[in-house]
């Protein structure tokens, strides 16, 4: 079993980075005891994507709040028809999926690819659960005659949750890739790739952490 990383190791005694080969099955800058050297989780490129996506959603949140300020009564009235229980359960499901992804990354670092694959499977099931909740919620609304053209609040509700669901679907493809890669005994993924993919999935969780109170509670 081999965990590869292309970065250099950090020497606390000299305070400098030292180019050194990675030990098999371990990552030198992240030990199980928790002593870590500063590093970007995954790749710099994925953080450009993550922060870019977060900024885009930040603009969406501002547009939603601006529209809400224009017609508070309509937004409050329409919000009362949302099913908070489904939103809350979906929040818990995404938080659980994030925990599984963290445990999978830790398992990869320790060289336990079989365990990592199991955690990725659990995270993937959580993603499916979230999408199931979304389908249930959309179905409930559409059955009650509430569609994106019902009013401004529901237009934003469908667009924001729809774009987020699209990100969940992309994240699930990423998790499926990691699950397959960690199950493949001949060619395991690099730890930087696993961290980068995990960061994307956590971003999906972060965006829902804002969306849930924004649409259902505030």
């Amino acid at each position, binding site marked *: 079993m081999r965990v590869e990383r292309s970065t250099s190791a950090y020497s606390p005694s000299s305070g400098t980075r030292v180019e050194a080969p990675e030990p098999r099955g371990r990552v030198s800058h*992240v030990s199980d005891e928790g002593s*870590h*050297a*500063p*590093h*970007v*989780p995954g790749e710099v490129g994925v*953080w450009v994507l993550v*922060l870019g996506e*977060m*900024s885009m959603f*930040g603009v969406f*949140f*501002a547009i939603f*709040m*601006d529209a*809400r*300020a224009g017609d*508070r009564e309509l937004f*409050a009235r329409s919000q009362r028809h949302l099913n*908070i229980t489904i939103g*809350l359960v979906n*929040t*818990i499901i995404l*938080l*659980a999926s*994030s*925990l599984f*992804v*963290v*445990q999978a990354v*830790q398992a990869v670092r320790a060289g336990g690819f079989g365990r990592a694959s199991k955690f990725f499977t659990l995270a993937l099931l959580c993603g499916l659960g979230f999408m199931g909740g979304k389908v249930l919620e959309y179905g409930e609304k559409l059955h009650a005659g509430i569609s994106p053209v019902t009013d401004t609040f529901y237009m934003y509700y469908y667009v924001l949750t729809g774009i987020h669901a699209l990100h969940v679907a992309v994240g699930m493809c990423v998790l499926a890739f990691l699950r397959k890669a960690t199950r493949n005994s001949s060619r395991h993924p690099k730890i930087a790739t696993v*961290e980068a993919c*995990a*960061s994307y999935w*956590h*971003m999906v*969780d*972060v965006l829902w*952490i*804002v969306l849930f*109170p*924004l649409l*259902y*509670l*505030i």
Partner: protein
Amino acid sequence: MDRPVPASLSHLSSRLRTAVRGQPVRLVFVGLLLLTASSSWFAESESSRGVATTAFLMTVVALKIHLVGMHFMELRYAPLALKLAFHGWIAVVWGLIVGFS
């Protein structure tokens, strides 16, 4: 005056310390669940949707994102610039949502 700690309390404290040392992410997960449940309960019990309610709920959101970022996304080991960018986004989103409410 020192009082003897009950055995069950000492046992619980010891188990908690072991859990924090071994798997701090599990403790963070429990904290996230508690914050989610308590903020939902607060929002449902609060009839008014004023700035103060929004500010409180968004502060809980900011705390939750901080926990996810630092412990799940492992930003606590990231360079300062990345930590600042992430927390800057949290502050801007908090300001925009509370400011428009």
